[in-house]
């Protein structure tokens, strides 16, 4: 097991009051596994990712819980200790690649600087610039960048969205981290380009046995790329298990509703919305956070937060499966 997140609770302090963004998130990730974090806006997917990297904004606070990464509890680490883990042992790719590339420096410059900062091979060499440059080009080749030498001399604005995302993927991959977190990394891309980038990501993952957390609202991406999936709702993981179980025979009413709400290209279905809206996490509902929208809600659902039950190898937090 590479990563274990246990009962993680995170709050944000805002002018509206305290936002209870994560209310007990629990899941784990094996070495070489691709794990999907699924959920809608405000479900806590990105906050979970930021917590793992310890990149939460100043108004956020980890209230309780553990993030065990390769035996170390990241919650307890100092910023300096965390800096040794970030980049080298875990890296991230985000939705809007242009925000993470500096517009006034060439791709090559930025890539070389990262390697000079983090890559032991480069740091220990006496020709740092040359070694770093060669490695950067090599990495761009790994993500199938056409004409990598030319891309090194380009500025971010000269690249398309898909190319920028591949640059970031190459940067993340270049330090051979144990974990890559891809937070809606292909959401802004066209479907044909998205398919390209996901294909490259899969290849890299297989080649080097990196673990990936794939955060997306698109259950299709999860079905096609992940081993297991954690379905999140209102800052909790409501269902967690193998993709072949959770997406084929969903147990939690929210997962069931989410799958039913999707129009499909591969068959005739009539999508059905989930009534109501996502709860306001300043005043989260009592008990199970999904009970106000759940067609099976019982009295107990309003009073108590359901514990996890294991059914058929899937962990589900719902009173329908015993209390």
């Amino acid at each position, binding site marked *: 097991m590479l990563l274990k997140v246990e009962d993680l609770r995170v709050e944000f302090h805002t002018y509206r009051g305290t936002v209870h963004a994560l209310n007990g998130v629990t899941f784990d990730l094996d070495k070489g596994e691709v794990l999907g974090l699924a959920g809608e806006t405000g479900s806590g997917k990105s906050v979970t990712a930021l917590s793992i990297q310890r990149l939460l904004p100043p108004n956020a606070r980890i209230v309780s819980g553990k993030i065990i990464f390769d035996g170390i509890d990241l919650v307890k680490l100092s910023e300096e200790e965390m800096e040794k883990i970030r980049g080298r042992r875990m890296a991230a790719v985000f939705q809007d690649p242009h925000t993470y590339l500096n517009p006034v420096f060439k791709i090559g410059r930025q890539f070389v600087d990262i390697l000079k900062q983090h890559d032991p091979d480069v740091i220990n060499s006496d020709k740092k610039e040359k070694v770093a440059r060669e490695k950067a080009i090599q990495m761009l080749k790994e993500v199938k960048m056409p004409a990598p030498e030319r891309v090194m001399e380009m500025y971010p604005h000269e690249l398309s969205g898909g190319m920028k995302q591949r640059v970031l993927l190459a940067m993340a991959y270049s330090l051979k981290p144990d974990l890559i977190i891809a937070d809606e990394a292909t959401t802004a891309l066209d479907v*044909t380009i998205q398919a*390209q980038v996901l294909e490259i990501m899969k290849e890299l993952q297989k080649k080097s046995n990196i673990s990936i957390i794939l955060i997306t609202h698109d*259950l299709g991406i*999860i079905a096609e790329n992940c081993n297991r999936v954690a379905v999140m709702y209102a800052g909790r993981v409501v269902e967690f298990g193998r993709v072949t179980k959770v997406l084929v025979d969903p147990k939690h009413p929210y997962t069931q509703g989410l799958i039913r709400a999707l129009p499909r290209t591969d068959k005739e279905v009539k999508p059905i919305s989930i009534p109501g809206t996502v709860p306001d996490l300043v005043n989260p509902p009592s008990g199970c956070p999904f009970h106000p929208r759940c067609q099976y809600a019982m009295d107990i659902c309003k009073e108590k937060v359901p514990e996890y039950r294991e059914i058929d190898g899937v962990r589900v937090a719902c009173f329908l499966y015993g209390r």
Partner: protein
Amino acid sequence: MEVLRVENLAKHFPILGGVLQRTVGYVYAVNDVSFKVEEGETHGLVGESGSGKTTVGRMIVRLIDPTSGKIIFDGEDVTKIKGNKLKEYRRKVQMVFQDPYASMNPRMTVKDMLFEVMKIHGISRGSEYERAVELMERVGMSEEHLYRYPHELSGGQRQRVVIARALSVNPKFIVLDEPTASLDVSVQAQVLDLLKELQDKYRYSYLLITHNLSIIKYISRRTTVIYRGCWVETAETQDLFSDMQHPYTQALISAVPIPDPTVKRNKIILKGEPPNPVEPVKGCPFSDRCPYVMDICREKVPPTTDVGKGHLVRCWLKK
């Protein structure tokens, strides 16, 4: 009966440069788009970002003028109409934009917004309030929502209000530009069903502009696929999905991830980058990325082939 037809629509935006702001080139946003929409039906216009689909929508509602081509509405050429005629056309042809929040005035209540539009077009004079209440009910909201400001509404509610505003002037035709792209999947179906219901009841015709093929499949009767501002295939939506002809359509449909891990299929992964709109199209617009490209594709625009039932495709392979 045909309600709208566009013929060889094109829009080239000039790029200005230098001290004198002379035209130094063009962004070839739309090059050659043709399709027709039947009354009371939904026509899907599908393409990726930069394919020109939104520009087509904006030309149809006459927010921008085409460089060339024709827009025929109800048998009349509306490409160049002006003044009162244009105002009346805009009443009949409404548009719903992707981001409902951006198309609302944050300082106006829902009531003010609806009243403003009705006033401009002189609709329901003296009984605006009754009509506003009726419109809210039509889109599944209630009277109390009339007093809300945009920030007090959820995303789905905002989209309903924008739809109500479009309906307030009794349009015939509505251009829907990514109407659910800003919504979460759990509420998206509500808005799609509302649009369907309204169409069944009032026989509105829709042009649905989207990159989302599953939505197209769910609500459009016919669909036109565009690439680099050119139409490449148009057909009844069912036929398009069961018997796609153009290599681009095939790649596009195959690239959509399917949320069922038991479905196994071969994905067509396209090589190459999305097109650069500053370069004019030569030959087939898809020739740069097409896995079956031949010499002729780069030279000459492919002819239109009818493969049956009005299923049209523009590809040299089908000739």
